[in-house]
């Protein structure tokens, strides 16, 4: 079975982000970029399926400017076999991303597509679901466990009431939650080997997809600065303030 795993280049989660002065977005200049953590979990799951003998090939795909090849190489170092880079300077919205991925799915015909449930930059949480709709595949979102049994995929999901297990017919789509696995570190020999793995570059136009804007960002604002607290003299005063000032009880 071939597994397709998708990854996104985002601001490193350790970086304290800054909003641009004109409020048009987050300032990306001279900021450390990294793999989206949920995508890392997706990669780890794909590599584990290959190590278990369930998957025969792991293909990684990413969309973005030339720099996303850094992240594709990093995934190849983690154990993916080859990479596909869809090169665009645009920052496509989830529906455009899903349309591009649908074309890759049509060409590659993977048995399983694994995506992070969302990227930590825009927190859209849409691409996996949209890709399922576009390709007609079944979907198991927010997976905390994944198991292939014959031609069925068992996906455990963390839902409000506890754990829900879905049975999906393959091919299928899985989006990963935080507790699915703990990603490994790339070893130095594998980083060196990753340089020699194939990486194919495609243009969105060559895939027959026109990148469209379905929404428009009006403004981006940083959260309000935290203000200092106050001391109250008594429990009565506290209850009074919670009830009449904060209006939370």
């Amino acid at each position, binding site marked *: 079975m071939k597994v397709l795993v998708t990854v996104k280049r985002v601001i490193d989660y350790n970086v304290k982000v800054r909003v641009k002065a004109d409020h048009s977005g987050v300032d990306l200049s001279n900021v450390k970029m990294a793999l989206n953590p949920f995508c890392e979990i997706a990669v780890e799951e794909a590599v584990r399926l290959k190590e278990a003998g369930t998957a025969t090939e792991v293909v990684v795909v990413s969309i973005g400017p030339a720099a996303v090849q*850094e992240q594709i190489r990093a995934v190849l*170092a983690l154990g993916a076999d080859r990479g596909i880079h869809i090169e665009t300077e645009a920052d496509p919205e989830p529906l455009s991303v899903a349309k591009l991925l649908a074309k890759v799915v049509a060409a590659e015909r993977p048995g399983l597509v694994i995506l992070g449930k969302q990227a930590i930059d825009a927190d859209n949480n849409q691409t996996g679901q949209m890709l399922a709709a576009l390709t007609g595949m079944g979907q198991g979102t927010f997976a905390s466990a994944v198991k292939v049994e014959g031609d069925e995929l068992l996906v455990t999901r963390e839902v409000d009431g506890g754990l829900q297990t879905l049975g999906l017919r393959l091919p299928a789509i899985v989006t990963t939650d935080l507790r699915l696995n703990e990603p490994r*570190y790339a070893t*130095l*020999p594998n*980083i*060196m080997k990753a340089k020699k793995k194939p990486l194919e570059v495609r243009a969105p136009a060559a895939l027959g997809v026109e990148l469209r804007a379905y929404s428009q960002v009006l403004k981006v604002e940083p959260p309000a600065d935290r203000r200092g607290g106050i001391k109250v003299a008594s429990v009565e005063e506290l209850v009074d303030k919670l009830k009449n000032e904060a209006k939370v009880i």
Partner: protein
Amino acid sequence: MNITVTDDDLMLSDALQRFCQEVIAPAAAEVDERSLSATCHRPALSEIGIMGMNLPEAYGGTGVSAVALYLAVEHLAAACGSTASMVTAHFLATDSILLGGTEAQKQAWLPDAAAGRKLGGFALTEPSAGSNPAAMRTVAEKTANGYRIRGVKHFISNAAEADFLVVYAKTDKSAGHRGISAFIVDRHSAGIEVSPPERTMGLKGGHVFEVALDCEVPAGNLLGGEEGRGFRTAMHVLDNGRVEIAASCTGIARAAYQAALFWAKTREVNDHPIAEFQGLQWMIADMATELEAARMFGLKAATRREQGERFSQESAMAKLYASEAAGRITDKALQIHGGYGYTREMPLERYVRDVRIMRIYEGSSEVQRNIIARTVLQD
């Protein structure tokens, strides 16, 4: 003369920085506080490939550039100085075999060492032969099957847990440094006694030992298969080693600098972050400048090493400057933290202690100046 850092070097550097910060750094305070041997990290370091980072792929190493190696050691030392010390001591042993050994010796010893299955130690220094190895008293006498090595080595990193030591000994007592030969000694041979670890000021997890030797080694363990080549090998190995010490200094200094920067921006006096005061700004400016200069020196030496050129002068300058700058930077970083910096609740006093040895081992600052003066006057 250019400094060349490739995209591959940066990719390796990024991956290793993350590994070092997430896996090695969290244990650094405990390693120091309890004097735990940094070999506790050997399994993780081996798995990631760091134990063989200095070796080519042909001998089981990772075959990365000297620049990537520099950056890796910097990240390792920023996370835990003791661990960097343990690893770079292992590199001195394997570099000895790589630079001085026969093809058969390299094939026999390096793959296991590169994979971290075997740990090495580098035994050159003696109680009365530090900066002047030619004064060493350890001797190797020919026997029927090989050599009998007798003598005492001091400040030998990793000795207790090492699987092999590269021991430098005199095969010709009358020939000065030309009488020195190097031997690969199985650490578990009969007649090797290792003291308890020295109680040191810093690098408390990078254990060093006294090693008393009266042991037999097979003739095939004479490094390079020829007597009298030990000094030359040791000098080449130490050219590499000094770049790694420079990287360690830069790493520890960077950790101290970043801690100080964070502290200066968040610690307030009269409702002003202390970073707003010019007195502190000037300290920070000096730290930032010296840190950058130390890294440039190290990267220049590493670039020359990568290009296969002589770099004795560059590596001596890198080690001299980085070790002295790191002393100043860690001291300023502690000063910026005030009383908190002096407590063991914060890592600043550890950085100050850990970095102090860097001006002493693998050639003191004074010896580096001798090397620099010699190479400058030669030109």
